[in-house]
């Protein structure tokens, strides 16, 4: 147990496990590619190689290289090296979750309202800024985007019910 303590009190998933997990995901992806290729035909058709010909071999290569990576991770990697410790992962998830909600909400609320909420959330949650500054920046950024994209470059961005109410 002494050598584990040399990594002090950092705890978290081992690098090795994550590498194995990633390699397994890639193998799964390779299998999906091979399955899809066989569906459309991997042989030789009237116009030469069929649609699945090229992806089929890609799938094989993905699986072969991923198995190599998997074996290497399993036997060679330093067993104690951490992928990241739990506090770091908590930081990362605390970005992923709000962003995931954000991208799912964009089609309903429109990009402007969602962006105001996202920026305000980040500034309040991580930065603990006062409401004045928070709202100022949260509203200014989408407003500038609106002027730049919709008015100058005439590129429409997704809008929701609130923009409809305002008649934008």
């Amino acid at each position, binding site marked *: 147990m002494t050598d584990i303590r040399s990594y002090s009190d950092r705890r978290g998933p081992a*690098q090795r496990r*994550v590498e194995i997990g*990633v390699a397994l995901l*890639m193998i799964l*992806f390779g299998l*999906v*590619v091979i399955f*899809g*290729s066989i569906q*459309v035909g991997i042989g*030789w058709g009237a116009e*030469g*190689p*069929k*649609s699945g*010909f*090229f*992806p089929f071999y*890609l*799938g094989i*290569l*993905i699986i*072969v*290289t*991923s198995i*190599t*990576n998997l074996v*290497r991770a399993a036997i060679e990697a330093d067993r104690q090296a951490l992928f*990241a410790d739990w506090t*770091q*992962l908590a*930081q*990362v998830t605390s*970005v*992923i979750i709000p*962003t*995931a909600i*954000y*991208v799912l909400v*964009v*089609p309903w609320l429109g*990009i402007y309202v969602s962006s105001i909420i*996202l*920026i305000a*959330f*980040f*500034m309040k*949650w*991580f*930065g603990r*800024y006062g409401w004045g500054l928070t709202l100022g*920046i949260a509203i200014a*950024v*989408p407003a500038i*985007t609106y002027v730049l*994209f919709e008015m100058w*470059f*005439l*590129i429409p*961005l997704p809008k929701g019910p609130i923009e409809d109410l305002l008649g934008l």
Partner: protein
Amino acid sequence: MEEVVNLFHGFAVVIQPFNILLMVVGILLGVIIGVLPGLGGANGVAILLPLTFSMTPTSAIIMLSCIYWGALFGGAITSVLFNIPGEPWSVATTFDGHPMAQKGRAGEALTAAFTSSFVGALFAVIVITLVAPLVARFALQFGPPEKFSVYFLAFCSFIGMGKEPPFKTIAAMMIGFALAAVGLDNVTGQLRLTFGFPELLSGFDFLIAVIGLFGIGEILLTMEEGLSFKGKAAGINPKVVLQTWAELPRYWMTSLRSCVIGCWMGISPAGATPASFMSYGIAKRLSKNGHRFGAGEIEGVVAPETAAHAAGTSALLPMLSLGVPGSPTAAVLLGGLLIWGLQPGPLLFVEQKDFVWGLIASMYLGNVVGLILVLTTVPLFAAILRVPFSIIAPIILVLCAIGAFTVHNSTFDVVLMLVFGVLGYLLKKCSYPLAPMVLAIVLGDKAEEAFRQSLLASQGSLDVFWSNGLVGTIMALGVVALFWPLVQNGWTWLRAGSARQAST
């Protein structure tokens, strides 16, 4: 001589006030992108690509390539002042740049960095001017097998020259190719790998992948490290600039060597990052001040910056002349060409003279303008970096989302962007390289088409790739590049290694 005439014609196009304005705007945006963590050259250009849809292709490429130069310049600012490389290729600049700043010589370090960047880029642009038309003329004779062999060479260089484990490089690359294959098959017109999802009909757009992998992925990495910026003040005044300029010619040998290394690494798609490290390492070994490297030696700033800029610029050579981009950012520019309705590749030099020579002329001017701009505006950009990450991060997320949406006006792409972002974070942490994956998504369709057309002509025999001297030579170079580490490490290693490689 024809080239000189064309080049001057190009200058005439670039010198129009509107284009000069775009150049300045592009460089300023580029420096901001280079300074901010999470916004790199590739995804910065990808996000801003939609803004150029309404411009003429020449104006558009001037703006986008200037964003790229700006990003290359900008990376140096954060490295020197904050010891945070804004871009991977400026990591080597921190080794000596930041110690110089700590000693109060930030102005000197920045001047040296910008000037070296400028020298490296200028060298690479001259190489492009002289070599690209020749390569393009030569490449006009290429048939499908030759085209495929060029792609083969490009991808083998990634495997052999990259610092990541080769099997991880291959895996990442093949996943890129597989993603490119999703959707409509260009040759037979059949749908494949869509599994009945209508969202997948048009396949995966590499711009979404770039914004996700590089933009969102980078933010997640930055969040994990919990960055707090502690920077040195930057003061650049004309006196420091002139003093540094007077000192720089002493390092002409380092400079020249770094230019050559940079150009070589940029054209073979190893890219700016390895070029900067390699150049720093060689300068450290060969310089008589080598033992003082790492403690704030100006030569240690000159070497990586020159090479990084030379590589970043020369990465456009194969993109222009062959249609094979040398870096992810060059790939995004190539994607831009396709969107503006231009076909990248050798024909560009014949059919779109204005465009090509306008771009090359803008490289000369853009770097001059860039050097002046960055030297005068450093304090401003250093101030941007002092804005806390809790404000910058959501703004970058919003910009990435807007960029992803505008590619195809699809909210599904925004979701996809986040998926690519999480994927990018995981892959980066497990040392899978992202650049070959992105290039594979970009070039997948073309490489496959060339491969299948070759096989069609040869009735399925792979001999077609060795059928004449030209294609055989390029394929052989590819094989050498693929096994480069083994070739390098001598015969014993070669024998042990080829047995292992042969098993794939």
